[in-house]
């Protein structure tokens, strides 16, 4: 029953191609973009690092939630989200690079970290952040560094523990690991419950430090949950074309697609909750966020693109039972949703990082650098995740729910 995955040279070449073309596009794009090219590279590094960190965490979360909730259908494909979790330590390195840049003013992603923000004489002075009652209690470089380092450490440790116990299960058998795996999953969910929110505030929301939204963390969580499910579907479909995972059938696709549909609707629910309250309340400090996205034609276009791609498209396509069981269609929807949520993250971060905070002039662009950086990260992702897949059996042979997963069946 044990199945070993071989990282084929064809896929390695594809990954290298993604990586190479991506890097080339970033370099060429940065050279063509001129003065603000470097800022755009940093901004895109932040966008993609954040997106892929979230995807890795969300896939481990899916496993953890099933583990403590006695879920069984996912066991056949369990090793794929587990391997996807291994992207988080790699993205942690990028988070730390961005952190070093923040501390030593190497980039302008977070203007609350700028020099002289507390000094009334400085041109960078910002009263909202600097005042003692202001936001610098939370948004100051020291506390920020402590938080980012502890996120990376906690996430890496928790994901390592999750994968380690699953690996042990293959060798030692279920009686040695079952109870412990539940504890570890519960601890992961506990960590993730707090850090998914605070992480979203720190990494993404603080590019607009004057603005805040309390449901931002869950809204982001829904986003990268959809991204993770989309990648899972594409990966399962790819592995099946390579002759692996023979027992996976349309019932498993159906469940994954139901999750993707559900989280797309959940995403829209939170997106709309945030939008409508701000639109209705019409308070300047809140409306500023959307005003910025509506006054720039690029952001406005992406704003409506993201809404239609991330809600109307999956809602209308995936609502039918038949389309949840049609693999070709699912792979197409998954790719579209993956890009759709990437656009959403772009529209969250780029207006904040690429706007001059004094003149309100936007230097954002959408072209070679954006697609190049995404392509680079996809290349890294394939290398890391598929390399992790080779480390253990594709099928968790000792899992007590394996038979339930093989005979899994959705009621009509």
């Amino acid at each position: 029953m044990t199945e070993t995955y071989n990282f084929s040279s064809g896929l390695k070449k594809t990954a290298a191609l993604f990586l190479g073309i991506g890097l080339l596009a970033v370099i060429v794009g940065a050279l063509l973009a001129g003065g603000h090219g470097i800022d755009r590279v940093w901004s895109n590094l932040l966008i993609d690092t954040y997106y892929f960190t979230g995807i890795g965490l969300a896939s481990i979360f899916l496993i953890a939630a099933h583990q403590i909730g006695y879920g069984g259908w996912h066991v056949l494909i369990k090793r794929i989200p587990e391997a996807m979790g291994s992207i988080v330590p790699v993205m942690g390195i990028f988070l730390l690079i961005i952190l070093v840049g923040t501390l030593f003013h190497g980039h302008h992603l977070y203007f609350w970290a700028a020099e002289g923000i507390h000094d009334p004489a400085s041109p960078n002075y910002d009263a909202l952040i600097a005042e003692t009652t202001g936001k610098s209690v939370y948004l100051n470089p020291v506390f920020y560094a402590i938080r980012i380092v502890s996120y990376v450490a906690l996430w890496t440790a928790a994901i390592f523990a999750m994968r380690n116990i699953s690996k042990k299960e293959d060798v030692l058998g279920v009686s040695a690991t079952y109870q412990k795996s539940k504890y570890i999953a519960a601890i992961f969910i506990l960590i993730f419950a707090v850090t998914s929110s605070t992480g979203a505030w720190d990494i993404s929301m603080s590019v607009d430090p004057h603005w805040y939204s309390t449901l931002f963390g869950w809204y982001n969580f829904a986003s990268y949950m959809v991204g993770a499910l989309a990648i899972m579907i594409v990966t399962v479909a790819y592995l099946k074309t390579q002759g692996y995972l023979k027992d996976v059938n349309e019932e498993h696709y159906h469940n994954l697609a139901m999750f993707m549909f559900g989280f797309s609707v959940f995403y829209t629910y939170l997106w709309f909750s945030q939008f409508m309250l701000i639109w209705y309340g019409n308070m300047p400090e809140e409306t500023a966020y959307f005003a910025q996205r509506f006054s720039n034609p690029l952001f406005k276009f992406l704003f409506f693109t993201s809404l239609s791609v991330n809600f109307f498209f999956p809602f209308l396509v995936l609502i039918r039972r038949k389309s949840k069981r049609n693999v070709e269609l699912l792979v197409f929807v998954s790719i579209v949703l993956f890009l759709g949520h990437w656009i959403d993250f772009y529209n969250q971060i780029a207006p904040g990082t690429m706007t001059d905070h004094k003149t309100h002039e936007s230097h954002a662009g959408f072209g070679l650098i954006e697609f190049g950086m995404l392509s680079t990260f996809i290349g890294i992702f394939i290398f890391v995740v598929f390399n992790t897949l080779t480390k253990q059996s594709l099928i968790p042979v000792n899992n007590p729910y394996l038979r339930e997963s093989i005979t899994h069946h959705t009621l009509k």
Partner: protein
Amino acid sequence: MDKYVVGLYDDEEVLLSAVKKVKQAGFHIHEVVTPFPVHGLDDALGHRQSRLHTVGFVGGATGFTIAISFMIWAATSSYPTNYGGKPYLSLPSYIPITFELTVLFAAISMVVAFFIRCGLSISAKPKIYDERTTDYLFGMAIKVTEDTTPEDYSRINDTFTKTGVAEIKVRDFDEEK
């Protein structure tokens, strides 16, 4: 005449294979009652996909239309009021109520349709083949008529016995009235 031969099984796996065998033997299965949903039973019985969700869609669409058209009418022509400087026709503020009414109409219409279709409406008299089918037994009912000969009865009994039945009984709902 409302009379049935009921085979009672005590295991769902046995029941599933029995359903297939009884159908193969050429009998029409009137109904199968189980204490919990049995995976694969719908397929074995040859049921088509439930149309309950169509009812849900129609109900939801009705709720959606009622909510959105009423609010547009009220806010633009019946009683236009200025709220916070917003235009009279401001769709984002209608979405929560439209959503609620869509869900409410869809849910209620599905519950009502489900109860009517399953014979569980208030005035309905439920046919209970055996009370233990709500607890631990699985019942398979085959309808018999005046034309059913004693040979047919024994053939039904034989088929049931061959498929591992736990108990066979005959229920005549006309007699009980």
